[in-house]
């Protein structure tokens, strides 16, 4: 089972600043790596460098960051592979996070968990890029 642990730092205007906190986080990452559960992780730039694209009325509208109205901003994420939801929670609980932080734990869909018709669609349809390459190869 794969889970994404989303770090919602609560306050994230300037990105990570506390070196000691970063070091503590590094120890957790190392522990997860040594335990063979860590698949991927990344930290994100603060929202003032980001943008949002919303689709109200059916067309994309761009809003530049920061997003003052939103408290729940993602600061980074881990992808882990574990035996159970409880194990994902246990790893998240070991995070040396600040007291404004929340970690949201979300299971990643495995392919066979998608509804059957979605799977069918994926099985018959190819990604456009792949299709184009296939056609180019077969004509050359």
């Amino acid at each position, binding site marked *: *089972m794969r889970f994404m642990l989303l770090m919602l730092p609560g306050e994230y205007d300037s990105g990570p600043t506390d070196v000691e906190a970063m070091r503590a986080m590094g120890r957790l990452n190392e522990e997860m790596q040594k335990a063979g559960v860590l698949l*991927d992780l990344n930290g994100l730039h603060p929202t003032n460098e980001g943008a949002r694209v919303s689709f109200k009325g059916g067309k994309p509208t761009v809003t530049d960051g920061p997003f003052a109205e939103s408290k729940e901003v993602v600061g980074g994420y881990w992808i882990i592979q574990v035996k159970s939801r*409880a194990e994902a929670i246990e790893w998240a609980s070991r995070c040396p996070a600040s007291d404004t932080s929340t970690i949201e734990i979300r299971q990643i869909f495995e392919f066979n968990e998608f509804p059957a018709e979605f799977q069918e669609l994926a099985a018959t349809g*190819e990604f456009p890029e*792949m299709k184009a390459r296939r056609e180019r190869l077969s004509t050359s």
Partner: protein
Amino acid sequence: MSDVRSAIDAVWRIESPRLIAGLARMVRDVGVAEDLAQDALVAALESWPESGVPRNPGAWLMTAAKRRAIDRFRRQELGERKHEELGRELRGDVMPEFDANVDDDIGDDLLRLVFIACHPVLSQPARVALTLRLLGGLTTTEIGRAFFVPEATVAQRIVRAKRTLSAARVPFEVPQGADRAARLASVLEVLYLIFNEGYCATSGDDWLRPALCEDALRMGRVVAELMPEDAEVHGLVGLMEIQASRTAARIGPGGEPVLLLDQDRSRWNHVLVRRGLAALERAERLGGTLGPYALQASIAACHARAIVPEETDWLRIVALYDALLQAVPSPVVALNRAVAVGIAYGPAAGLEAVEELSGHPALEGYYLLPSVRGDLLVKLGRDIEGRAEFARAASLTGNARERKLLLSRANVADDVEIETRRTSS
């Protein structure tokens, strides 16, 4: 209540290998160490539902286990010297510094645990069960379920394995010198065996059990971190990561296997592909001749790098199989090489390579031999012979899903043939 229970299970999964490894160093007996760890688990099951999971559950379990150890050795009649020795290690004066020194040594302890669980004095099923139990943190129920063996059988296998290790006085140490290579080979073999039982199940109706693959991969990654200087460990991890990346694409809508070249590559897990390629790179960076696992990982990487099957570098794959055959002269490897030759140099060359293998005693009754031959015959337009080969292959496999696929090829070889001609024209 059930939340606490699953939290305890989770803590156990994370902490038990380190717990058992640390205890085994102290009591110098893996069996006793495991019993003590189990005692600590029972203590947790008694008190955590009331008190909640402690802030540092690993340390809590270790303290509880050590308390049991002291009780146990006080109660038991032990040789005076051993008693004294153990007493010194287990009594209060060691306890305060235990947490400080356990972190430094825990890597070594874990590695010792890995090597002892895969010790050649044990039978292969015993090594597999003990590894899953000690390093994977699986319960006997889970191991039984994974291998379609009654739980009691697994439990007995583990008890006997622990007894064998005790009786043989197997030291709790990382092997050095000449012994080391053979012992490491056994570790890698056990991990890959577990992975393969998940990847191409030899029993049961489902031919793929991803949970077992994940267990093997997780343990492989642990061992790779413990032995970062060993290229073959990274080779094995790379191989497993890349193979596991195909899991979703290997099963069709009806649960049937989908062959590598027919797989929808957009379904491959690209995080795992990337990890696999990185592990292989680590193996290559360490230098020296690539070992059998790294070579197999290199072959898997050729497929992983090709966005569409037509981009596969088959010439390189044949060359890698040549190297693999040098390292492991195995008819099964030679059969795989023949498949690659059939694509790189055409079905006639492939069939020629297969014919060299027919009659090989090791391949007698091996379903993939007629299956590969059938495929090449169909490609050469000899579809009646091809269908007969598929039917023979179907009669030789023990797996229900695979048999179904082979039977369907035995019956529709005509259609496949037409399809092949159409696309190649």
